[in-house]
């Protein structure tokens, strides 16, 4: 009896030991290797409080590297894309921003700034975004009051993280496109670029 119990424990400890050993050993490869593997979540879990055509709610948030950043500081100067991601260190959004980092010239072509926002605090965002290389766009922390900005747009989920959402805002401060994406999926870049194209078309028409 003791022996059987022993074997069970033996198996357990071997598994535990191996788990830790492999966690350490396998940390050499790609970014995603160190990532938390999430289970699929409810695609959308909030109710939007803004719509296309509305004036975008203003905010001021601390950024990882460029001090306090306000939406209003870009008014009249740049179009703005707000990219909300649910939380740091999750695979899909670890993906999303490095892609936008590579697509810098596309944003610039349409005279657009990108603001990345998550509900994480600054130290977490610092560590996380450092793994992505040098980001050309500000990363803002909507940590405290928790998810306040996400909540003002109506994209704070019931568990305290934000949706994976994109807002395209023109130079006058009006929302021109909204994509509250399935949280489990990455929005394709071309869909966003299409909205940026329309932004300039719209502007051409009004001029």
């Amino acid at each position, binding site marked *: 009896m*003791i022996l059987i119990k*022993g074997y069970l*424990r*033996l*198996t*357990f*400890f*071997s*598994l*535990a*030991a*191996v*788990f*830790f*050993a*492999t966690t350490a*050993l*396998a940390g*050499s*490869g*790609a*970014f*995603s*290797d160190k990532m938390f593997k999430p289970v699929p979540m409810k695609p959308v879990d909030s109710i939007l409080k803004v719509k296309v055509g509305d004036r975008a709610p203003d905010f001021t948030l601390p950024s990882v590297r460029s001090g306090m950043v306000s939406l209003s500081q870009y008014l009249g100067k740049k179009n703005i894309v707000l990219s909300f991601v649910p939380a740091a260190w999750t695979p899909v959004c670890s*993906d*999303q921003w*490095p*892609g936008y*980092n*590579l*697509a810098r*010239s*596309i944003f610039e072509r349409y005279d657009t700034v990108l603001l990345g926002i998550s509900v994480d605090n600054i130290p977490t965002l610092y560590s996380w975004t450092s*793994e*992505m*290389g040098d980001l050309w766009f500000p990363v803002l922390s909507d940590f405290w009051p928790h998810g306040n900005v996400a909540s003002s747009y109506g994209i704070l989920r019931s568990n305290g993280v934000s949706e994976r959402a994109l807002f395209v805002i023109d130079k006058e401060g009006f929302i021109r496109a909204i994509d509250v994406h399935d949280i489990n999926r*990455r929005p*394709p*870049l*071309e869909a966003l*670029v299409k909205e940026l194209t329309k932004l300039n078309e719209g502007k051409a028409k009004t001029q």
Partner: protein
Amino acid sequence: MATYPGNGILSINWPVRLNSNTFSQEGAFTFEDPFFFAPPVCKWSFGGHLVRKTYYFKAFLLFFAIAFSFLSIRDGSAAPKEGERLPSFSLVVPANDSYKQYLGIREDLPFLPTRVDGRMLIIEIFSMYCPWCQKEAPEVNKLHALIEGNPKLKGSVKIIGIGAGNSKYEVEVFKDNYKVPFPLFPDEDLKIHKALGEPMTPYFFAVKLTDAGDKISYSKLGSFGKAEDFLALIVKLAELE
């Protein structure tokens, strides 16, 4: 698994127990024993010596068996290994004529990668969104330049990239940014990625192409290091010299 405080080799209090002799009171083996993995001849190994010896042996066997199975799962998931054949998947012929020429594909029907003209095909699984793939891109370009600049290798070693989960547009963004000279194929629905065992990115395969069939001779997650060194390895594996 980690929530098993106070027990076993992973517990933080075992050095404390090392200095006490409480564990020896029964004289029998317990798995809270801090000497679980100690050599069987150690001086504390009294009583139940034989039992302990058996356990050591089995523990190590079990440990390594599980360790290796875990490693193979974690490092590159279920991607096919060296010595195996490349799983079957088809590629859409690129619109660009110079790519068609590079690949040696004449018709416009989807083709198997093993039909590429050459003796070694290097396949990079990448994503435009993956920062490690971004970092690796200049080195892969360099590899391509080294191959094309060497008359002995040009035509024999080919490179293609597969953008896992990337749309055509996203692959183009990657290509334009890094001026990638070799063909990149979008894999938006992850069909190819799935066929290749869903590896993480960047992942490199080198597939030896012979009349007798194809054989994977390199299958690894992560950077291949310096282009010169990797090319030397490829030349060796392809037996091109």
